[in-house]
């Protein structure tokens, strides 16, 4: 096991390294970026000169070119003063060699970028111009965690019993009902489902308020921006902006949409896993020795049928960090996924790169975690 873990660890490191290279170099090739705006300019007076652009490039660290840029992004720039001058890249703007460190770093070593490996993801270009990317991500993390954990837990709590019931009562009327629901849930595009839910339950124009005169739900934004109107759930609960009640009420619709969709898939997964177990010999043995069916299910079948669920729960880990991109966008939920889409659309590459890099790391860790958990839960699986 130790050998296996060590080998896996090196493989993981390699995968992360290659993924980080892919992310960086592809974004380097991508058109757009903060320098492109500067190169536009209708006439001579408003256009930036080559030296001006070079100065901005040096300020942002973009003058380094892809290879040095990648090294600086990954390992930081504080060690780059040891690089001899003849290795510095030639700027295509001024045709001169510029030092690899940014001017701000040359002035004071404390201002140097420390690189992704040491947890420094650089500065944001657009979303929060000049702010450290780590801080930007952290500011959104709470919202994503709230949404994703509640949706994950809610759907697990419902999906597991539903799946077990469907399997135990296969081809019963309720099983067909759940199956139909699963297919509908699976086929439903989340952005459409979200919009429909908003139309039905959100805002004071929605039928739930206009026709049935029931309190309506807020349609977007994580917290209140102005005091709630009469008839809103928030008004009834007398929510203060930023309070937990406020956030919870705002989370109702996205959580329900997301968990209904997760549930659709997971209950199906649970069902087939349970069916598989019920077909096993030891279940037949348990029945043959006269155990009552309830005990057969609870003691013999249930535990084993939960094993494949590990994959799902563990792979939810990167999802819990990364958020549900589309759901967050539909509900204007300021979480990670929403931030990522915004950053991509605005060409804020440091933010997008950090998101992708952390996601990749989490997926790799989740894979390993899943494999290890399998060996713990199922002793038949061994790694050599």
């Amino acid at each position, binding site marked *: 096991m130790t050998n296996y873990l060590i080998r896996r660890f090196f493989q993981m490191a390699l995968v992360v390294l290659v993924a980080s290279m892919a*992310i960086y170099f592809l974004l380097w090739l991508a058109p757009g970026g903060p320098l492109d705006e500067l190169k536009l300019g209708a006439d001579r007076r408003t256009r930036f000169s080559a030296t001006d652009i070079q100065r901005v490039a040096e300020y942002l660290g973009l003058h380094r070119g892809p290879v040095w840029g990648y090294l600086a992004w990954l390992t930081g720039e504080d060690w780059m003063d040891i690089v001899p001058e003849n290795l510095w890249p030639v700027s295509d703007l001024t045709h001169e060699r510029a030092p690899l460190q940014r001017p701000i770093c040359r002035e004071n070593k404390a201002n140097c970028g420390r690189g992704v490996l040491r947890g420094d993801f650089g500065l944001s270009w657009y979303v929060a111009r000049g702010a450290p990317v780590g801080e930007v991500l952290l500011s959104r993390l709470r919202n994503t965690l709230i949404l994703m954990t509640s949706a994950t837990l809610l759907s697990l709590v419902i999906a597991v019993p539903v799946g077990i019931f469907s399997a135990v009562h296969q081809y019963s009327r309720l099983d067909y009902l759940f199956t139909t629901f699963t*297919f509908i849930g699976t086929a439903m*595009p989340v952005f459409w489902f979200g919009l429909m839910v908003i139309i039905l339950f959100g805002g004071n124009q929605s039928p739930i308020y206009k026709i049935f005169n029931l309190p309506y739900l807020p349609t977007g934004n994580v917290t209140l921006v102005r005091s709630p109107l009469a008839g809103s759930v928030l008004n009834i609960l007398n929510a203060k902006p930023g309070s937990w009640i406020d956030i919870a009420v705002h989370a109702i619709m996205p959580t329900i949409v997301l968990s209904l969709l997760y549930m659709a898939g997971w209950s199906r*997964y649970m*069902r087939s896993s349970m069916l598989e177990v019920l077909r096993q010999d030891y279940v037949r043995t348990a029945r043959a020795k006269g155990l009552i069916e309830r005990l057969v299910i609870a003691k013999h079948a249930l535990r084993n049928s939960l094993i494949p669920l590990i994959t799902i729960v563990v792979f939810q880990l990167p*999802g819990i960090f990364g958020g549900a*991109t589309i759901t967050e966008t539909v509900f204007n939920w300021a979480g990670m996924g929403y931030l990522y*889409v915004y950053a991509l659309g605005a060409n804020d590459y440091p933010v997008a790169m950090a998101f992708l890099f952390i996601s990749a790391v989490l997926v790799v860790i989740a894979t390993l975690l899943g494999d290890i958990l399998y060996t713990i839960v199922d002793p038949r699986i061994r790694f050599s």
Partner: protein
Amino acid sequence: MAVAELERESLGSVREESLSKIVFRRFIRHKLAVAGMFVVLVFVLAALFAPVVAPFNPYKQNLGPAYGNPSAQHLLGTDELGRDVFSRLVYAARLSLFITLIVNFTTETTGTIVGAISGYFFGWVDIVIQRFVELLISIPTLPLLLFFSAMLRGITVPGLPDEWSQAIIISGVLIAFGWTGSTRIVRGMVLSLRGQEFTQASRALGMNSFQIIIRHMIPNSLAPVIVGLTLGLGNVIVLEAALSFLGFGITPPVPTWGNMLQNVQERMWQQPWLAFYPGLCIFLTCWHSIILVTRCGMRLTRASSVDGCPTWRCFRLPVAPDCLLGLWWRRRR
């Protein structure tokens, strides 16, 4: 003597039925699947004959009846620029279905071939391919797709109108990250097939690796590929719509089912059908692809399996179709 005669008689009386006939017969029996096929067929026909079906030009702006209610003239009303929603839906079907078909056939074909090669040759070929696949899988799909679509937005394919060149770029991105699923499944099946007697026999008979892959490995691992293909029809259509909805796919004024949902938020309580119908088209296509899999997919293997083995296990599918559903679906939240 009598036994032999009886046997001859019974053997003679059983008419051999071709696989396609069996599949067709079983397919017809399932009403919901037939209905689904019919709906999808309607979409395909509407897309093919869009200029005939659509009563209006989908790009023609008409500021008079902007946000018009459904009427005899405008079946599904008009959008914010007074364009006929029904005509736009019909034209949108063209791009959406084109992308789905292209992406699916290409990914499943490449996936099968790469998976068969990876599984059959094993050794370092397998290691290289599998590590590459793992690398691709290690980044979450939707952010990755968004990332590439954002990156390639500016590129145009020369000699094509704008929308088709965008469609090809999007298809390329979806293909580049879509082939890994079927690769892994086919590889798993080929790994078990290559050790079996018939493979050894064909090798002993002098078939080379290429022939064995084409004649034995691929046909024998086709069942899950067909499942993947059918499921993919729904999956890709939703993925493409998601990309377009988030603004990284096909850009307006060219209509697709996804980007028609982009700007509906503003008036969605007054004109809910603007949000309803494009989503409904996506939903129906996707739903029917799932129905086809879960109903006819089962039937397909049942028909072609030996001993009437009713489950998927006789095909050594690494996962049951239900699980596949769950796994495929995981990609697009």
